[in-house]
C-alpha cells in the first residue's frame, strides 16, 4: 500500500518535472543548431541528430556592424533598471504599507482599505492606457530614452505590488510588538527600524522577488519609452528577429534572459525555507 502511493507520487512528480524542464532543454538544444538542423524536421541529440555550432551564441556578442546584435549592454541596462526600481519600490512600499497597517487615515469616505486598493488598482489598468501619459511626461522632463526615466516608470508599476504584499504582511505582525518597543523606550521611528524592519525581511524578500520578475520581463514600456540611446533586454531580444527567424540565437537569448530569475528564485527559496522566518511572527 505504502510503496504503491510512493511510486505514484514520484511518477506524478517526474511527469510534472518533464513538462517544466522540456521547454528549457528544447531551447538549449536549439541554441546550438544551425539553419539546416532547425528547418529539416525535429532533431534532438547533438552530434547524433545534428552537428552543434556556437553561431547562435556568437551573434549575441557581435556588434551590429559585424552583423550581430550585442545584448551585453541591454543586459546590464536591464539589471540596473530592475534592481534600482525594485529597491526604490520596496523602500517606499514598505514605509507606505507600514503606515497603512498601523495608522488610521481618513479623508471623507476614503479609509485605509480604500487607499490600499487604490495602490493595487494601478495594476488592474491595462498598461496601454498609461503609455501616452508616460510618454508625454517623460518627454517634458527630458527623460525619454534614458535609464532614469525607465526607473521612474517602473517604480510606478512595481510599488503597488510591494505595498500590497507588505500591508498583508504587517497586518499579521501583532501590533503589540510595536507597542512593546515604544514602552521599551523607542520612539516610533526607532521602533520601526530596530524592531519592525528586522522582522519584516521575509515579507520584503517576497515582495522584492515579485518586483524583479515584473520589472525584468516588461517589454511594453521598455519598447515605447526608448529609441536609440538605451535599450533593455526584452527589446534587444525582439530586435534579433529578422525575415528569417534566427531560432538559434533567439533560444540562446531566451536562456540568458531567464537565468537571473532562476538564480534569484533559488536564493529566495533557500532563504525562506532555511530561516523559516515566515513562521517567526505568529
Amino acid at each position, binding site marked *: 500500500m505504502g510503496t504503491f502511493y510512493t511510486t505514484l507520487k514520484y511518477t506524478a512528480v517526474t511527469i510534472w518535472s518533464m513538462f517544466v524542464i522540456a521547454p528549457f532543454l528544447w531551447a538549449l538544444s536549439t541554441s546550438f543548431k544551425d539553419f539546416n538542423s532547425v528547418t529539416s524536421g525535429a532533431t534532438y541529440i547533438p552530434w547524433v541528430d545534428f552537428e552543434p555550432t556556437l553561431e547562435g551564441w556568437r551573434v549575441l556578442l557581435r556588434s551590429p556592424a559585424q552583423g550581430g546584435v550585442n545584448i551585453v549592454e541591454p543586459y546590464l541596462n536591464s539589471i540596473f533598471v530592475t534592481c534600482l526600481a525594485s529597491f526604490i519600490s520596496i523602500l517606499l512600499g514598505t514605509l507606505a504599507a507600514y503606515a497603512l497597517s498601523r495608522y488610521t487615515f481618513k479623508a471623507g469616505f476614503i479609509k485605509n482599505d480604500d487607499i490600499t486598493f487604490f495602490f493595487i488598482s494601478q495594476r488592474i489598468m491595462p498598461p496601454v492606457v498609461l503609455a501616452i501619459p508616460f510618454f508625454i511626461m517623460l518627454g517634458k522632463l527630458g527623460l525619454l530614452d534614458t535609464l532614469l526615466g525607465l526607473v521612474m516608470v517602473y517604480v510606478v508599476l512595481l510599488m503597488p505590488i510591494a505595498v500590497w504584499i507588505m500591508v498583508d504582511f504587517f497586518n499579521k505582525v501583532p501590533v503589540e510588538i510595536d507597542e512593546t518597543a515604544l514602552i*521599551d523606550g523607542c520612539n516610533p521611528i*526607532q521602533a520601526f527600524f530596530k524592531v519592525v524592519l528586522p522582522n519584516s525581511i521575509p515579507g520584503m524578500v517576497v515582495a522584492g522577488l515579485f518586483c524583479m520578475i515584473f520589472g525584468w520581463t516588461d517589454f511594453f514600456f521598455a519598447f515605447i519609452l526608448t529609441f536609440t540611446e538605451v535599450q533593455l533586454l526584452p527589446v534587444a531580444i525582439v530586435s534579433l528577429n529578422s525575415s528569417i527567424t534566427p531560432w538559434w540565437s533567439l533560444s540562446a537569448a531566451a536562456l540568458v534572459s531567464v537565468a537571473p530569475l532562476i538564480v534569484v528564485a533559488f536564493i529566495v527559496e533557500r532563504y525562506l525555507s532555511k530561516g523559516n522566518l515566515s513562521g517567526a511572527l505568529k
Partner: protein
Amino acid sequence: MTLIASNLTTKGKEEFFLNDISFEMSPGKIYTIIGRTLSGKTTLLKTIAGLIAQDSGTLSFNGNNFDVIPVWKRQVAMVYQQFINYPHLNVYDNIAFPLKQRKVDLAEIKDRVKQAIEQVGLEGFEERKIQALSGGQQQRVALARSLVKNANILLLDEPLVNLDYKLREQLREEFKKIFSSKASEEAILIYSTTDPIEAMQLGGEVIVMDEGKILQQGSAKEIYENPRSTKVAEITNDPAMNLFDGEINGKKITLNNEVILNIPKHFKDLPDGKYSFGIRASGVTLDKSGFPFQIELAEISGSETFLHLNNDQIHVVGLLDAVKNFNIGETVKVSFDIEKLYAFGSDGILMSSPYSGTK
C-alpha cells in the same frame, strides 16, 4: 510617586471603553483589575502606558501631567496576554533591549540582565531563540524584560491566561514572590484578570471594572465580604453569586415566589419590600428538610462537588463538601443558609451583607 487618574473617558462608536475612571495608586502595592472580557481593562492599561490617548480626563504621575509625556519616555513596563517578544533577538538581547535603548552602560546591562534572568528562572537560556521556547518560557522573557528596567509602573494584562492550568498556578506563585520584592522597591503594580480566584490570591487592592466603569475598589477581603452591587457579586465570584428576585414581608423572605425563608439578624433594619437577594454556592447545601430541587449538573472540583440545581422558577448553584456522583434530573433537598444571605436594592446596590457588622 502616586499615579492619579481623574475622569478618564474614552468613547468608541457606541459604547464607552473608559467611562469616567478616577483613582489614586501609590507605590509598593499590587492593584488587581478584575472584569470580564471587553470591560475596558486593556484600554485602561494601554492608556496608562500612553499607547491610547483618552478623549477626556487627565493622568498625573508624581505630581506631573502624564499626558504630555510620550510612551517611550514614560517609566512604564507592560506584559501582554499574548507572548510578545522580539522574534529577531535571542533571550539575552530581548531582555537587554530596553536598557540598550536607554544607553545604560554595558557592564551594568550585563549585571541587570543577569539578575532579571535569575529572577524569572531562565538561567542557561540566554542564547536561545524566542521561537525555541515554550509559552511559559516566552512569558518569563517578557516578564524579565519588564522587570529589568526598574519601571515605576508595571502593567500586566492577563499575563497567565494563555498558559496551561498548572503552569498558571506555579507562575502566579512566582509572580507574587517577585512582585513582593519589586513592590517594596517603590513600583506601582497593576495586574488585570478575569479570574476571581486569581484576584483573591494575588491579595492586593482589587478594582472591579465593567463596561468601562470602576464599580468598586477595595481590598480583596472587602470586595468578597461587601460587594457593592449585584454586578460586582457576579464578576468577583466563581461560580457567580446566585441572585434572586424576592421580597421581605414581616419575618419572612420570599425568593421568586417559591422559597420562603426566615429573616436573618443582619436584615433587621431592612423595611418590607422588594429586593434582590444573593447567596454564594457555599451557602446552598444539601439538607433533608430543605426545598426540593432537580440536579441539572453535578461537577466535582477537588474535594467538593458543585451542584447546579433548578426547580420551576429558580436556578441555583450549591456546594457539597464531599465528592459524590448524581444523575441528571435526580431530586434532592436543599437548604439556604440565611446567615450568608445578601440583600441588594432594586437598583442592584448592596443594602445588607452578612459581614455588615464586621465592616
